């Protein structure tokens, strides 16, 4: 029996079939396509008189009652977990980096000293909050907005930052604002405690944003590679 190999045009029809079933993300289509194509080729080999349309329907039926859904849903879950684990490993890399950790420690000390200096000299220009605290929030607001924009065209179901960016990057600084006295001057002890907290939160958020950016870069590269393959096929 001659081996049947689908032509580019037939593969495009298969792609359209997969998309017509509601699976439109290129990386999910590409995950399903090869297996589906192999099945269709087998159907055509076994019954040469079968039309491509019929072979596709028969092959799809072989996937079971849920069709392509189990493949797509577990693939989404797998990718989400994968990017989360990349994020964790990037964070670990920074924590153990001889370059980043001393640098961030120095930045932390500078934040602490600057916070204390502003508090003693009453530098509170916005909302009656310490200027260093205000600058930190502004910086993270800009950084969070940049990360959001950077991941804008990223598939939502596997976006590694979508679910956590509000939870951590906004609530943590806002929480600190609430516990910072707005009008009264801080005592020496208050300066020490709050200065340390601001320095630690700043360093933590720095590590987090660098890790998120690296993760997104890796994920985007992978997604783009798949999208290019997809575009080459359907073009």
């Amino acid at each position, binding site marked *: 029996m001659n081996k049947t*190999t*689908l*032509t*580019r045009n037939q*593969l495009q029809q298969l792609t359209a079939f997969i998309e017509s079933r509601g699976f439109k993300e290129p990386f999910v289509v*590409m*995950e399903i*396509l*090869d*297996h589906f*194509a*192999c*099945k269709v080729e087998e159907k055509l080999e076994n019954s040469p008189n079968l039309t491509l349309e019929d072979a596709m329907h028969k092959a799809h039926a*072989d*996937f*079971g009652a*849920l069709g392509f859904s*189990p*493949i797509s849903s*577990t*693939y989404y*879950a*797998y990718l989400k*977990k*994968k990017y989360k684990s990349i994020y964790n490993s990037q964070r670990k890399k920074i924590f153990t980096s001889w370059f980043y950790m001393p640098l961030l420690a120095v930045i932390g000390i500078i934040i602490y000293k600057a916070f204390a200096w502003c508090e003693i000299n009453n530098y509170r220009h916005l909302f009656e909050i310490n200027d260093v605290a205000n600058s930190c929030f502004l910086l993270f607001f800009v950084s969070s907005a940049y990360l959001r924009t950077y991941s804008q065209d990223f598939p939502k179901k596997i976006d590694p930052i979508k679910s956590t960016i509000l939870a951590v990057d906004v609530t943590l600084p806002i929480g600190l604002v609430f516990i910072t006295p707005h009008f009264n001057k801080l005592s020496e002890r208050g300066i020490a405690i709050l200065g340390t907290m601001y320095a630690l939160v700043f360093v933590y958020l720095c590590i987090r944003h660098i890790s998120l950016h690296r993760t997104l870069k890796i994920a985007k590269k992978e997604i783009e590679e*798949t999208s290019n*393959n997809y575009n080459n*096929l359907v073009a």
Partner: protein
Amino acid sequence: MESNQFIKGSLTAIILKLLEDNSRMYGYEMTKAVRELTKEKMNITEAALYPALHKLVDEGLLDTINEMVDGRVRKYYSLTKKGKKEATTKIDALNEAIASVQIILNSKLAYE
């Protein structure tokens, strides 16, 4: 098919065994291999195979590599170092389980 119930419980060991013997395989090739080896008595469904493959990759037991074959991207799965160790353990465990079940099925039990 009754055998499908059995295959579900031993799918991980079957995948690891196939990859141990073939160094690398793609999804469809695995389903075909199981069908041919069992003379169509067993069939791995895609709904069971791919979640299992994704899980094994996630656990670091399998590696994947994409290659362009016949105009489409084909994903090949192979065992990692950790996967090779785990393959031996899982296959041994499955063999032991099958042997135990056979002992029960082949003996006349007079259990009180």
